[in-house]
């Protein structure tokens, strides 16, 4: 048995962002097992050391230090959130370790010059917003009320929503917020209702999106509810029950993989990944698990081709990941773009009879 290749992973397995870190961690553990069972990389098993950052920047910094100093990893995947990613960027940059973040924030990879070592796999939030707005434009919706969670996730969604609205001729007539542990959002929704909005957009993850859905239903608001790309979990439909009917969201194809045509280049990957994951963890990986999938697979592919060398891994990812089908979409990395995805990676999906349906 040859010497293993060590890869570091930092995920928010616990704490406020555990909805991200949990499937990410699961995904990575599963993949490692599969890859090693298949003989590893040219005989080298891979070893992924997963550290829990507890959704906390200080912990992320410590974890990064540990992975680099103690474990001498070849690359780092994660962290799960933008804040944690930002906090460790100086460290990985200084140590010259390639990092593929699983967080969406644009500032993680921009400006690319300063983010020489940094990549990310999730789509930009703006892409999800563009997908929603494009669809709304088609439907003739001109005024929207937005309601966002007051976490980094909700906040970056909110910024994108506000920023892009004029480009699509949309006016944001109400801009409401709520806390991650709030139990009732009726007040905010009632205000949106009174503002004359023609649609509500909720940007959150976790129980908040279900509560908003229920409150929206109870209030009989009479206008459609749009959710963010965080909505893509069957559990949400279960929890919200009949209230979820008619809710629309831009979702990664991972959620609706079975409804894709067989010719779609992502379909085989998604099928294998989702079915394996479901078999092992009895739950869906969702969009977020997919981010870790893509990140790890990029590193693995680089290792296969260039071997255990941090600089070469980085260069490979930047230049050779082209038309590369992942779970999040078809990646096209380049020295100008360290993310490589755009809004075409989303599908607009509606909840019908307790299931997803792709909107054309």
């Amino acid at each position, binding site marked *: 048995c040859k010497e293993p290749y060590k890869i570091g992973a930092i995920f928010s397995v616990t704490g406020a962002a555990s909805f991200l870190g949990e499937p990410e961690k699961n995904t990575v553990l599963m993949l490692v097992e599969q890859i090693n069972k298949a003989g590893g990389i040219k005989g080298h098993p891979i070893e992924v050391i*997963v550290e829990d950052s507890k959704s906390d920047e200080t912990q992320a910094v410590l974890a990064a230090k540990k992975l680099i100093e*103690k474990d001498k990893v070849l690359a780092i995947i994660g962290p799960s959130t933008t804040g944690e990613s930002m906090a460790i960027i100086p460290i990985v940059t200084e140590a010259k370790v390639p990092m593929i973040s699983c967080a969406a924030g644009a500032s993680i990879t921009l400006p690319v010059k300063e983010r020489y070592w940094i990549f990310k796999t999730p789509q930009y939030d703006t892409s999800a917003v563009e997908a929603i707005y494009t669809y709304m434009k088609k439907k003739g919706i001109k005024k929207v009320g937005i309601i966002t969670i007051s976490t980094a996730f909700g906040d970056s969604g909110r910024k994108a929503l506000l920023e892009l609205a004029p480009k699509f001729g949309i006016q944001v007539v109400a801009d409401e917020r709520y806390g991650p542990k709030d139990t009732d959002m009726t007040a905010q929704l009632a205000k949106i209702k009174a503002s004359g909005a023609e649609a509500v957009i909720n940007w959150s993850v976790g129980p908040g999106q279900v509560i908003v859905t229920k409150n929206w239903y109870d209030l009989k608001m009479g206008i459609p509810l749009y959710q963010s790309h965080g909505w893509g979990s069957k559990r949400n439909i279960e929890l919200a029950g009949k209230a979820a009917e008619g809710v629309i969201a831009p979702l990664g194809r991972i959620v609706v993989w079975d409804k894709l045509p067989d010719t779609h280049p992502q379909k085989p990957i998604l099928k294998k990944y989702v079915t394996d994951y479901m078999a092992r963890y009895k739950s869906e990986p969702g969009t977020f698990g997919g981010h870790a999938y893509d990140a790890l697979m990029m590193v693995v592919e680089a290792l296969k081709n260039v071997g255990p060398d941090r600089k070469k891994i980085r260069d490979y990812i930047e230049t050779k990941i082209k038309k590369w089908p992942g779970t999040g979409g078809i990646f096209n990395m380049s020295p100008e773009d360290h993310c490589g995805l755009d809004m075409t990676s989303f599908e607009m999906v509606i909840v019908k009879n307790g299931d997803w349906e792709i909107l054309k």
Partner: protein
Amino acid sequence: MKKDNALTIFVFSLLILIFPLIYKDTYLLTIGIFIGINALVAIGLTILMGYAGQISIGQAGFYGIGAYVSAILSLYFGLPVLLSMLLAIVVACIVSIFIAIPALRLKGHYLAVATLGFGEIVYLILNEWGPGGPSGFGDIPRISLFGYTFTTSYEYFYFVWSIVIIVMIFSFNLINSMTGKALKAIHGSETASATVGINIVKLKIKVFILSAFYASMAGAIYAHYVTFLSPSSFSLFYSVMVLMMVVVGGISNLWGGVVGAFIITILPELLRGFKELDVLVYGIILTIALLFVRKGFVPLILEGYRRWLQK
């Protein structure tokens, strides 16, 4: 400072000095830096709680003000880092006066909630109006002294711990002075303190400012070390952890803050091996530690030391 305190601090300083020379591991140094930062906040709270008897669950507020103000001043207004740190501390101290005057009329659980409320308000404001909102902001300049910029963990380690040692010396002097006795007196009986001529309100406010001073200084160092800030580092959770440090270390001794910061900071690192179960194990260890060590680790260590001497 009493003689044995002086000796302890001297030995301690030596240890701090040689530690990085033996362990050239920047991971350990980084932990050391965070211990130092937390210790600063904890020392302030030890004086406030252990000596003046005023509880606070809002130290994260001052910590956050120190961090944010210093970061904003240096990043967006281009002030030299040391100057912005200083100004941040001044701001935190001024805020603390405004909080202290009304809050110190309260006592016990009521004071606890008022300080908790203050801390949460700071957090919520940072979340709403801080640069970057909940996502935070980065690229904060690093500390530079006379044109020399600190970049390595070594430099930060020595910088933080020199400050901790200065703070310890100052604090020991203070609590061993008449002021310290007056503080303990207030703790013992406010009525009696008033009738022997102690201006309770003024003294309490001063200690409150002192604790805000230490906390904001720690916050400023944090900002310029990590170079990225987001509100989540300054939430109620941090205040509670500082409180935990003080209690675990031992509330009646200044070293308690340092030892508590050490224990509470390093514990999660030690528990990394437990993966999923770490929260559970963490909870169990904390509970057991509190149940069996009661007065905190420092008195326990002192007691052990005394026994050992007697042998």
